[in-house]
């Protein structure tokens, strides 16, 4: 290709190809689980239904990792930790907890904080805190001062779910609580129980990865 026009065309094509490759690369790295909206009920009230599984299984890119899932409008479980809820509203949250007990290192986090009434229900029983040793995970949004400890399935429970997808017929705890949202914003939530099995001191891996034990609460 000896003409100037040919050379310009070759360089232009090369630039476009490189730019496309860079775009693909960055898009791959910035890809995030989908944001799932809470299901609206009446007035300013919505329902957010979650579950936690000890190993997410083939639903996730890292099958052995502990993870949260969320129920979408169709009633399907979606592997995501990005939730969208309306501003200035009540959010009823239900968590089906299939993971076992691993214990809190900081007992302070065993107290329910930031929910309506600073309480929650565990298997239908109203509670303001749980024994720290029974905690499996927390649903915590530090910027909203919200901390909800999630008790784990007892060690001797029958029919435990080891790998996802877990079914409600298997051993689980049911936790419900209500939060009142304020101004719109994007708030980070995460689990504060070092629950990353197989990782040093329980940290790393799913504990730091969006889509597993870490995500965003989008208040819009």
């Amino acid at each position, binding site marked *: 290709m000896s003409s100037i026009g040919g050379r310009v065309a*070759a360089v232009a094509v090369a630039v476009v190809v490189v730019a496309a490759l860079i775009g693909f690369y960055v898009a791959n790295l910035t890809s995030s689980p989908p944001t799932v909206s809470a299901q609206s009920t009446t007035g300013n009230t919505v329902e957010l239904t979650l579950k936690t599984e000890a190993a997410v299984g083939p639903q996730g890119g890292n099958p*052995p990792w502990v993870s949260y899932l969320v129920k979408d409008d169709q009633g399907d479980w979606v592997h995501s930790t990005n939730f969208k809820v309306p501003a200035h509203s009540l959010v009823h949250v239900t968590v089906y907890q299939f993971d076992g007990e691993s214990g809190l290192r900081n007992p302070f986090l065993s107290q329910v904080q930031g929910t309506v009434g600073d309480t929650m229900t565990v298997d239908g029983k109203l509670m303001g805190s749980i024994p720290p040793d029974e905690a499996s995970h927390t649903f915590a949004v530090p910027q909203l001062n919200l901390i909800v400890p999630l008790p784990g399935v007892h060690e001797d429970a029958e029919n435990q779910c080891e790998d996802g997808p877990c079914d409600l017929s298997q051993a689980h705890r049911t936790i419900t609580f209500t939060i009142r949202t304020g101004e719109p914003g994007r708030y980070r939530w995460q689990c504060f129980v070092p629950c990353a099995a197989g990782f040093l001191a329980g940290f790393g891996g799913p504990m730091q990865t969006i889509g597993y034990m870490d995500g965003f609460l989008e208040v819009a």
Partner: protein
Amino acid sequence: MSSEALARPLWRRLIGFNLLGGIVLGVAGFYFGWWLGHQIHAESLDFFGDTNQNDVALMLGYVFSVVGFLIGLGFARYPLARMLGKERTHTENEHGGSGRYFGLCTDHKVVGVQYLCGIGLFFFIGGLNAMLIRAELLQPSPQIFGAGNYLTLVGLHGTMMMGIMTSGVLGPFANYFVPLMIGARRMAFPRVEAITFWLLMAAGAILMTTLFFGGFPTGWTGYAPLNDQANFGFDSYIFFFALVGLSMMLLGLNMIATIITMRAPGLTWSRLPIFCWGAISTSILMVLAAPVLIAALLMVGFDRAVQTSFFLSSAGGSPYLFQNLFWFFGHPEVYVLALPGFGIILEILPVFARKPLWGYRIAVAGILGVALLSFFVWQHHLFVSGLNSSLRPFYMFSTEAISVPTGLVFLAGMATLWRAKIRYTVPMLFCLAWFFNFFIGGASGVFLSDVPSDVATHGSFFVMAHFHYTIMGGLIFAFFAAIYYWVPKMFGVMLSERLGKIHFWAMFIAFNSTFAPLFALGLMGQPRRVVTYPSHLEPLNIWVSVSAFVLGASMLVFLANVVYSLVFVRKPAPDNPWDSRSLEWQTPTPVPIENFERRPIIDTDPYDYGVPPVPLVPPGPAEAPAPG
């Protein structure tokens, strides 16, 4: 490629032993290994949908992909022919057009160009990762990539730069110019020379596949027990570094054999160009250090795939052992990166200072001294890892002692510049910047070799600033000096001096603006490899990120210069545009396949500038050698 072959249509030329064939067989080999691994590892037979990590399958996939890649390139033809008793030529694809750059070629000049382009590609990918890292650090909490992908980016950047750039100078420049400098026709083992390049490219491609398997969280050091806990993506790290180690080892062996056995008559050790001293000392480090890395990675691979426990404390192994093995390779590797820079700087300085290299023997002693001492300092990386405290003083003093031979190199360089009539060409500017950067890198290194200050700064941005000053400020500035200096011989065209100077000043200023503040950030407590930081450090981080983006833009200026000069302007380079006395510049441009019409006989030193008569240098269009 013969003229008959060139006459064939393009699609027909694409079929055969070349890069395309290598890629096809490489991909096929991967799937074969993946399938085989699942047959062996019977727990999970589902392709890509299994719930267990089948490291055996992935590792076998990588093994067979590399084997297939090399077969596709044509590396099996020669040994197979010899095994079948057939005679084959010792050369491969040395004649012909541009097709020889995309396959196995035994011409050292082609391999040098292949290295320059291949390493350049991965250097820019590594640089792109650095830009993404700094984009994430514009804010105190993760907003763009998340913590997991951030760690993968940091790991990819560090691993790629530290792995690929080990051959950053020896690959392109020593392969191309050492035979010319010593008056040889070729390298000692041309096929080995070729395979070192293609192994490196296979390694780079394998490392990038980590993105498909979840990345890896360990940074470039790959410490235990993180390396055992990490998901699938870490297997690519193992194979990347193992292949890089293999490539380094073979490259080093070939270089040592070439310099020892193939020097022209009269080229005594005391007349050997200083760049060749840099190359041979680097090669010795490569040959001695790389096997340790390969062995350590093999053990990690076994720990992950077949449940051995070399490095797992829970099963009687020792994570500390991995740190020792890694740094026994890792610290000499730092000098694998630095020593070629020494050679380049001292090679180029006399040309543009128009003076003999001051203290040639002192400079050689400095280079060899650094190489020797580099094997006795590795445990300074382990001061806070549980190292027996009674060993600390030895490693502290051995590390600090390395500044003595380094000082000899500085002395030789500085004294060469003393009262010189310096020509401030682009290569010379990069050389002068090297002194500034490497001095800061070396001086800050004293704080890290000193136990009390290392304990305070270990794992912080201070460490990161230090090694970027030594490796980027040292190696990469020398790398660019070499590019601007030798590209006229390699490609037969001159790079634009004006764009080169813009590139230099932008890079030099932005480099210092990026990395000097990292010393402060480190002292203020910002740790490495952590995506979050205290909000009061945000302004300085923004400054660093913006500077890093300018640094990245300076690389685009360089790319623009390459495209402008090599694609559009194509200003022909004279045979010896810098009036150098070194042997490689006495050849015609482009350099003939045979290098020299007849074997040269050396009867002068390469740096006798101003010492009449100067028989080797033909009168050129540029400035004549300065008297005295």
